[in-house]
């Protein structure tokens, strides 16, 4: 393997053969692999300190609570939030976005109001708003894309109006590999007194995100896409908004006092964390952030950029391979979607899997985007910090071999 990549050794799962070939894992936009160091710390937590949080007076409960809340503080620092009260632990980005829709949306969206999203949203940042709009008789509006797959900012100017109450946009596309100017969108939203929700699921693992700088009102992301466990995620919200929002789940932990016929709510952030949370998941997220910071987000970006600079021209040079989204490596994240003309992406992905190369194939939970682009599905490779130039070359070779295999077939 590539000797220049010093992080690869931290990921034991990568050192295996799949279908008799060395594994090349290129499905990082779906989920990332876990560093040994993070996982062993989680195991150690279970072996030495685990108990329920916020409830016991005993020593283990105290240790567990302390580590759980320390993880929250790590998240706060990582995204530069003002207070740990603004960091709510959720199941993941989907859960976070649903929470905003069901709490803030439920209170603030009325008939005739507008919610603005874009054509490149993942279903998790689309269906909650679509359902809210249906329920409230509000209007859901989509910002158009430019020919090369970027957000059409002129159209954004037109779509965001005084009727707009919520603008919710992904910071990085899980299909097209573009980064969106969410800071500029937040300004536009605020000029019309709307709130700005940012889906950070694809951006947070790959680039520095500063909620104060972006001036977004909400930010949602998932732990499993940034080397933590699955089942843990974060909703950041500005404190003054979260204070006004009603809880959407009721039960233990989220209450202040329960009477027979009414209750009062715990303070932030616990008001939104009913029930025993994903304790070890939150702790794994804290350790994953430690790991990310030890690597440096700038180094992650550099590694991805080097690979994309190398591989994008090679992919574009393959006859009959169509690459979607920007064709210029300069503005590309590690996500590259493509199709081999005449071959369904599932058949392509099976071919690549036989060569040991793991990619995603399908609609990538973005069916309105597929329809908008006139597609049914695509194959998608996504690179992360442990990927190398060798991995990228293996992808190119595997695509060529699969193309050769199906060369006499037109479907």
């Amino acid at each position, binding site marked *: 393997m590539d000797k220049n990549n010093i992080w690869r050794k931290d990921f034991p799962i990568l050192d295996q053969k799949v*279908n*008799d070939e060395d594994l090349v894992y290129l499905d990082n936009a779906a989920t990332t692999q876990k560093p040994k160091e993070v996982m062993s710390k989680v195991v150690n937590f279970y072996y030495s300190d685990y108990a329920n949080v916020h409830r016991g007076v005993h020593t283990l409960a105290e240790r567990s609570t302390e580590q759980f809340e320390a993880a929250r503080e790590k998240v706060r620092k990582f995204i530069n939030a003002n207070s740990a009260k603004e960091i709510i632990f959720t199941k993941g980005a989907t859960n976070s976005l649903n929470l905003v829709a069901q709490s803030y949306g439920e209170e603030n969206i009325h008939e005739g109001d507008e919610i603005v999203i874009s054509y490149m949203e993942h279903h998790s940042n689309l269906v909650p708003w679509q359902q809210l709009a249906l329920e409230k008789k509000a209007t859901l509006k989509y910002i158009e894309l430019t020919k090369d797959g970027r957000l059409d900012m002129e159209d954004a100017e037109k779509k965001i109006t005084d009727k707009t109450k919520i603008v919710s946009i992904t910071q990085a596309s899980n299909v097209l590999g573009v980064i969106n100017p969410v800071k500029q969108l937040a300004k536009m939203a605020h000029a019309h007194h709307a709130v700005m929700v940012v889906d950070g699921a694809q951006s947070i693992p790959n680039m520095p995100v500063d909620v104060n700088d972006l001036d977004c009102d909400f930010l949602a992301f998932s732990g499993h896409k940034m080397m933590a466990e699955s089942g843990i995620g974060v909703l950041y919200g500005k404190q003054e908004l979260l204070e006004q929002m009603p809880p959407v789940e009721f039960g233990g932990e989220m209450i202040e006092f329960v009477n027979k016929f009414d209750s009062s709510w715990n303070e932030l952030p616990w008001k939104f964390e009913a029930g025993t949370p994903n304790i070890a998941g939150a702790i794994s997220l804290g350790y994953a952030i430690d790991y990310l910071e030890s690597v440096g987000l700038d180094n992650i970006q550099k590694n991805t950029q080097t690979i994309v600079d190398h591989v994008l021209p090679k992919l574009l040079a393959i006859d009959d391979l169509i690459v979607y989204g920007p064709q210029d490596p300069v503005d590309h994240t590690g996500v590259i979607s493509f199709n081999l003309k005449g071959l369904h992406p*599932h058949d392509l992905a099976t*071919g690549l899997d*036989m060569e040991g190369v793991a990619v995603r194939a399908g609609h990538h939970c973005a069916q309105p985007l597929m329809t908008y682009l006139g597609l*049914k599905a695509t194959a998608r490779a996504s690179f992360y910090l442990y990927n190398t130039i060798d991995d990228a070359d293996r992808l190119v070779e595997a695509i060529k071999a*699969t193309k050769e*295999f199906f060369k006499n077939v037109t*479907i």
Partner: protein
Amino acid sequence: MSLSKMDNLYRQVILDHSENPHHHGELPQSTNEIELKNPTCGDVLKLQLEVEDGIIKDAAFSGYGCTISQASASMMTDAVINKKVEDADNMVQVFSDMIIGEDVDTHVLEDAAVLQGVSKFPARIKCATLAWKALHKSLTNQSK
């Protein structure tokens, strides 16, 4: 090279069916009609049947899918035309058992028996079964 393993999946007869699918299109008149979607990949399959006196007189499919799903639909329609409804539904069971690797007598499936190779590719089982699931649902009145 590991791609050679795909020979068991993409047998020539499967590629032929996919390239030139049989009974592809719409029936002028149908008694049973169903549209099934594979939510993981967005594939859509519409199946129409003309059933008369308990016999499948004609069948046609349309939609969009991968090599395996298109070939399977083509082979399925070939195999069930002029079959009794209960025999066709029994074939669905044989196909379902075969595709998960059970040792069953597959001769009733005709060409479709060649899809046995899919059982070694778990990620593709759904592609192969979509057409048969549609057949079962349309025969058991779960269609519109």
